[in-house]
């Protein structure tokens, strides 16, 4: 697992925290840009700078299904809370249905989470930011139904995204239609979209670490053939399996106990 310098992360298990999956911090010593792979989760982030006169900015991200580039200045810092996939509503509320691949900045982010608007004052400490983000996320009330979606997310991760919606619905003891509706309502993505992301991340890992051929990796990841894997990598990463960027930061999206991911 490749991690950038200046990145720290603490993962929380479901027993430790009900909505937050990780609290992370990142610092960039020099200006540049970085490719962020989509992981289907929502984050609430404060972006600030080593220069304490720079006023921090609030960022709320929706579940991403596309790669994107983030550009940064020297001394840029981020502190963020990543939510469990099924807890996106904590940040977006009913707007989660329209949050896919959206990034809300400043006023727009403050409108979503007005409780955090007061945080963005020059000179605020990292500790205060972290505490405020964690308290806010964990303090938000939960709606029922999250449990069943959470179990479905778990099954998707255990199978590397290879269970069909039919199988997932059978295991959740409900119809595919009902499962999809609950899933979209909680995660902000369809079951199929989320499964494709999990499959993509696992395939990426297999290509980089399994030590076999590309067709071996495609087969183990559950793609019909290598062409399907190539298509998925183009779509979610913007690259092809035979030409994965050397400096790619591969996030761990295991959805709970383990994980690392780059800041945006």
């Amino acid at each position, binding site marked *: 697992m490749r991690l950038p310098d200046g990145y720290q992360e603490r993962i929380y298990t479901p027993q430790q925290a009900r909505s937050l999956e990780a609290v992370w911090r990142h610092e960039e010593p020099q200006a540049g840009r970085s490719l962020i792979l989509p992981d289907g989760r929502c984050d609430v982030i404060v972006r600030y700078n080593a220069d304490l006169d720079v006023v921090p900015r609030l960022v709320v991200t929706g579940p991403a299904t596309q790669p994107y580039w983030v550009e940064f200045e020297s001394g840029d810092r981020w502190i963020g809370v990543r939510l469990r996939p099924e807890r996106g509503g904590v940040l977006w509320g009913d707007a989660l249905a329209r949050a896919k691949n959206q990034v809300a900045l400043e006023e727009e982010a403050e409108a979503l989470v007005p409780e955090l608007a007061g945080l963005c004052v020059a000179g605020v400490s990292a500790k205060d930011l972290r505490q405020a983000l964690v308290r806010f996320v964990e303090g938000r009330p939960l709606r029922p139904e999250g449990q069943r979606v959470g179990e479905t997310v778990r099954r998707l991760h255990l199978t590397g995204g290879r269970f069909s919606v039919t199988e997932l619905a059978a*295991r959740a003891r409900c119809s595919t239609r009902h499962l999809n509706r609950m899933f979209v309502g909680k995660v902000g993505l369809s079951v199929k979209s989320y499964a494709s992301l999990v499959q993509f991340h*696992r395939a990426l890992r297999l290509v980089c670490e399994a030590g076999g051929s590309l067709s071996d990796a495609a087969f183990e990841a559950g793609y019909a053939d290598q062409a399907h894997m190539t298509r998925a990598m183009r779509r979610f990463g913007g690259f092809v399996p035979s030409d994965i960027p050397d400096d790619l930061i591969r996030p761990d999206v295991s959805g709970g*106990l383990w994980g690392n991911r780059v800041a945006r």
Partner: protein
Amino acid sequence: MKLGYAIIYVKNVLETVTFYETAFGLTQRFMHESTLYAEMETGDTVLSFSAEEVIELDGLAFAPNEKSAIPAGWEICFITEDVQAAFEKALAAGCATVSKPHEVPWGQTISYVRDLNGCLVEIATPMNLEG
């Protein structure tokens, strides 16, 4: 090479160990402080339980064991002279019956249950290979 471990991936290692102690009379011989891994006292070939979560760390993937799903195509088989008593004990502990004790043409008495995680477990008399 020799067979060292049979490792079953489960949702909850602690609950599974307690269940196997109660239902099948095994004893725990090791529990990692994280409670993500445990071993039972089963002789040279160790029956272990590992938390499902850890698999993604190694890039593995599998169909998780669940009561609501069809079990995976393999089993754990316990051997006893008193299959009926062991079978009843397993059911009393919460196993679901699949096949009650019955004699098969080659002389064994066998039965099948599913454990708390939906895994297939056989309880049978020893096979007399000299028979």
